[in-house]
């Protein structure tokens, strides 16, 4: 990492624009940065910050309507931004390669893994068939895949998400490129898998001496894994510098905001402990949920989960994909009948309710979905969306209904002008506020939040979490909060259930679960949370490590 060597990548005054019909809009403005040999540089920003466009420009993969307006991109000293497609092809894969965002759809479904790894060797072909096959196995072994010979013969759908990402990394490192562009390489993966994949990229980088341009929305990932951070907002660089320096003393207001909004163990202000003696709002006892697979076999998604939630508190249900957390809350919300077990809200057993009683029960429990793009009818105005639950129950006069809609919209922090708009005219955060307003308009006792903030940018996420806390204080709401993000959970929950493969492995107050008394699985989850190198992270880290190992 000598300073005298030429940078691998030198981007100067880069402007990128996209055309939409007749309009051209510039999305990247005068971006300049360098990546030195062996260095990991993180491009950090929220959606629309231009981080992905910048990365795509470097590998010459801008979408058809995108164009480099100005500036230069020097790769290994050669200016490539004006190169022809044919010339660019000769360096793609060989000098600069890509680890894509979504491993699930980034492999061709009808070709074997082996064929897809071998392809990059064929394209820049210097190996004969047998040598190439041996190299494929070697690469698959290097990225830590078990039984590489078997994997090479398998098709993408037979591999898990983490395994697919390993295959894609194998492709990216195959020709020992000077630079790897990792575009949100782990955002589609569970935290424990994310950690292993990032470790792998780190190890390979060290072994091969490759530089990495890491594109991420997750400041925690950037903090842990990069030497240098570039913070982008609205297509402009807000700040860049050595990672440690940026984290320790951020210069721009935006970076400070990102740092304070990013959920991390460190930033979490612990909630005051619960006073005992609160009445119970929700009790789940021995919940079991079986599904019949298309093959006729039974699959137990949820196996004997029990917890209770006191009124006015937040209970978090945590787990990775496939842990049964979504199944659990769908049973609570009355969308499916439990195979066995009991769910009590007040004096009602949800499982015993039929048609009309179930409909009446819905006034007590409301669900807020993860994706505010899918959970609002695209053809209804905000007014109609929020008003609808009232139409299903009491026949209130029109003026009364409108007054209530107006009040609740104001309550969730939206201006009255949104009432006449359609969902597509709103931002993600605004939509989620509308979804919350719809859930609250019936004045429910329990609100179930299904990953309700994980589709949002961190600054918006922080605002919604703030809103939820405020509503809970003022209205005495009880939340069941489902999340994969332990950092968020630590920040907002009073009690936690940790699920793993359908079983509840830990249950208790936040302090209990996050302390050393929890199971190995929960501790692995906590360890995997990115953001260890955040300025104040040391304290919480010690907090975890200090406890006696069970």
């Amino acid at each position, binding site marked *: 990492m000598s300073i005298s060597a030429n940078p691998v990548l030198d981007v100067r005054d880069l402007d990128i624009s996209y055309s939409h*019909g*007749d309009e051209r809009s510039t999305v990247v403005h005068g971006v300049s940065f360098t990546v030195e040999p062996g260095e990991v540089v993180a491009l950090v920003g929220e959606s629309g910050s231009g981080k992905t466009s910048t990365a795509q420009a470097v590998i010459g993969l801008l979408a058809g309507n995108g164009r480099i307006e100005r500036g230069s991109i020097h790769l290994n000293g050669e200016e490539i931004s004006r190169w022809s497609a044919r010339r660019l092809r000769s360096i793609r894969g060989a000098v600069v390669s890509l680890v894509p965002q979504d491993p699930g759809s980034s492999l061709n479904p009808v070709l074997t893994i082996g064929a897809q790894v071998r392809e990059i060797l064929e394209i820049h072909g210097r190996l004969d068939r047998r040598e190439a096959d041996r190299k494929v196995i070697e690469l698959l072994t290097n990225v830590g895949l078990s039984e590489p010979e078997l994997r090479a013969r398998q098709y993408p759908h037979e591999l898990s998400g983490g395994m697919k990402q390993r295959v894609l990394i194998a492709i990216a490192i195959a020709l020992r490129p000077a630079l790897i562009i990792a575009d949100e390489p782990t955002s589609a993966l569970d935290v424990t898998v994310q950690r292993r994949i990032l470790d792998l990229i780190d190890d390979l980088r060290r072994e091969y001496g490759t530089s990495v341009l890491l594109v991420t929305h997750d400041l925690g990932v950037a903090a842990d894994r990069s030497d240098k951070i570039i913070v982008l907002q609205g297509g402009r660089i807000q700040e860049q510098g050595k990672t440690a320096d940026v984290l320790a003393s951020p210069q721009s207001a935006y970076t400070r905001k990102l740092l304070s909004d990013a959920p991390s163990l460190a930033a979490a202000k612990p909630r005051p402990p619960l006073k005992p003696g609160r009445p119970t709002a929700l009790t789940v006892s021995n919940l079991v949920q079986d599904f019949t697979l298309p093959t006729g076999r039974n699959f137990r998604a949820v196996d004997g989960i029990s917890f209770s939630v006191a009124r006015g508190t937040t209970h978090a249900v945590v787990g990775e994909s496939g842990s049964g957390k979504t199944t659990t809350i769908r049973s609570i*919300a009355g*969308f499916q009948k439990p195979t066995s077990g009991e769910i009590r809200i007040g004096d009602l057993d949800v499982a015993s309710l039929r048609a009309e009683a179930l*409909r*009446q029960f*819905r*006034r007590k429990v*409301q*669900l807020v*979905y993860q*994706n505010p793009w*899918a*959970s*609002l*009818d*695209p*053809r*209804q105005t905000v007014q109609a969306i929020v008003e*609808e*639950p009232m*139409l*299903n*129950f009491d026949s209130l006069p029109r003026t009364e209904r409108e007054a209530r809609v107006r009040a609740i919209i104001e309550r969730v922090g939206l201006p009255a002008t949104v009432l006449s708009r359609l969902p597509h005219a709103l931002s993600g955060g605004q939509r989620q506020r509308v*979804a919350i307003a*719809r*859930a609250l308009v*019936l004045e429910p006792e329990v609100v179930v939040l299904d990953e309700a903030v994980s589709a949002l940018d961190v600054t918006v996420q922080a605002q919604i979490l703030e809103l939820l806390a405020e509503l809970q204080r003022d209205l005495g709401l009880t939340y069941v909060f489902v999340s994969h993000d332990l950092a968020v959970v630590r920040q907002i929950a009073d009690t936690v259930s940790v699920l793993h493969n359908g079983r509840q492995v830990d249950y208790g107050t936040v302090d209990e679960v996050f302390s050393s008394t929890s199971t190995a699985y929960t501790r692995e989850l906590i360890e995997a949370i990115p953001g260890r190198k955040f300025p104040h992270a040391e304290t919480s880290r010690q907090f975890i490590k200090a406890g006696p190992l069970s």
Partner: protein
Amino acid sequence: MTSIDTFAHLTSTTAEASPRLGKRRGVLKTLRNFPYGLALAWLVLTLVLLWAIVPWIFTSYDPLQGTPGGQLKAPSALHLLGTDSLGRDLFARIVYGAVHSLSGAVAAVGVGLVVGSGIGLIAGSVRGRVDEVLMRLVDVLLSIPTLLLSLSIIILLGFGTLNAAIAVGATAIAGFARLMRSEVVRVRNAEFVEAAFGSGGTFGKVLWRHILPNSLTSVVAYTAVQFGWAILQISTLGFLGYGAPPPTPEWGLLIAEGRNYLATAWWLTAAPGLIVVAVVLSANRISQSIGRSAR
């Protein structure tokens, strides 16, 4: 409904363009972005619709009465599209024939739309055994090639314009049923529909407020395609002689009659055929624009 929106949008852009003559760039941009194909499609359909309603405005000739001595005349200023073997003006026959083709197509699509969408809606909303039985019935309808199915129905009902329309409509049922069902199932699985049930909606209310409005656009787009397709089918039946009897100037029949004079009077087959192509193409273009606005 959406097609009217598109149309309104289309006219509003032209209206906007005129006062801005000073701003050259704005006008140029509007001119470049103007959907000429779509405008032309609407123009063709409007014109043909007018032919069907008030044919006498467009021609002074009688579609059934020929001029003696004026047989098989080539197109000229006097006879825009020439005359047929009985001296009848071909343009007049095409204009007066519009009503037969259009009403036939409307009736056919109406049968398909009402019966097919009804089946699809029930199958998609009720699910379970009813769905299974209805969709197997649709499979049976699909298993008989459309032309053979309409021929079987025509044999049963007899020849004629209305019977041909019913026969074509019957073959459209399966398509509408499948589309409607898949749309209902698609919308039903959408999160906002679950959210509507979750906020206490009854099945009927959710169906009316969310499922129907959100599945309708595709059905409207499909209806436009089917309209063009029905015109084709009806003209085919007319050509084979199973539709309207002569001397009705139905378009398919016009082509069949002109076929005997291929070597001498090419216009007798070319002109009505081109009209059919234009109408069907327009219907498809409009359907496409509706479908695009849906997503």
